């Protein structure tokens, strides 16, 4: 019985690919919002956008971040985070996209989008998803400076 239930949930939500090559375009974000207009049970969306910051480190400015990942593991972990979040919050839907490859300072590298009947669930689920994915997904970022040297970023 228990097993049947679990496998039913697993079939319902298969691991989705979250990775996109290159930056996340604002038109893609706009289209994602537009697509939800047919889901009329939604009363609130929450969106988090991560943007590559031009940090100054030892007097040198970050020019871009090149993201790489252990993709199979990251997708399995993200699937688990998604399952947990859906159990905890009454969400209508959740979408997560993360960039891979070289992303210039000022460009968007993370897009987390949660929707619910009421705002609180959407906002809390969005925040928890962002915090968890930053801590749990095997993703690395190589920060390149304008003089072509680099260093590896580390989440605080």
């Amino acid at each position, binding site marked *: 019985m228990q097993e049947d239930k679990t496998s039913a949930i697993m079939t319902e939500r298969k691991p989705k690919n979250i990775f996109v090559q290159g930056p996340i375009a604002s038109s893609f974000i706009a289209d994602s919002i537009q697509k939800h207009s047919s889901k009329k049970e939604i009363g609130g969306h929450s969106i988090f956008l*991560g943007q590559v910051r031009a940090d100054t480190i030892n007097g040198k400015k970050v020019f871009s971040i090149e*993201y*790489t*990942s*252990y993709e*199979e*593991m*990251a997708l*399995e972990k993200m699937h688990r985070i998604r399952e947990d979040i859906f159990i905890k919050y009454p969400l209508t839907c959740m979408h997560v996209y*993360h960039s891979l490859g070289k992303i210039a300072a000022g460009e968007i*590298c*993370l897009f987390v989008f949660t929707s619910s009947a009421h705002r609180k669930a959407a906002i809390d689920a969005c925040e928890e998803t*962002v915090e968890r*994915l*930053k*801590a*749990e*997904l*095997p*993703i*690395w*970022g*190589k920060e390149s400076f304008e003089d072509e040297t680099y260093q*590896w*970023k*580390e*989440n605080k």
Partner: protein
Amino acid sequence: MQINILIFGQLADIIGENKIDLWDIPDTEALKMYLQKRYPGLSDLPYLIAVDKEVISANTVLNNNSELALLPPYAGG
């Protein structure tokens, strides 16, 4: 017994490869000791070991088909 190890991020810079194959490593403690000896630069960097895509927290016995990965600190988001 051959084990294949995927190497990511800064660790790939230190080791100089994205992937290494090793023989006769029975468990993850033995792997850590081998890596430490072979690549002294690793002592400066904390890293996690994943066996079959799960981060391990205690010594883990390796099988012939184990998929290993060395994971430096994450920087996603």
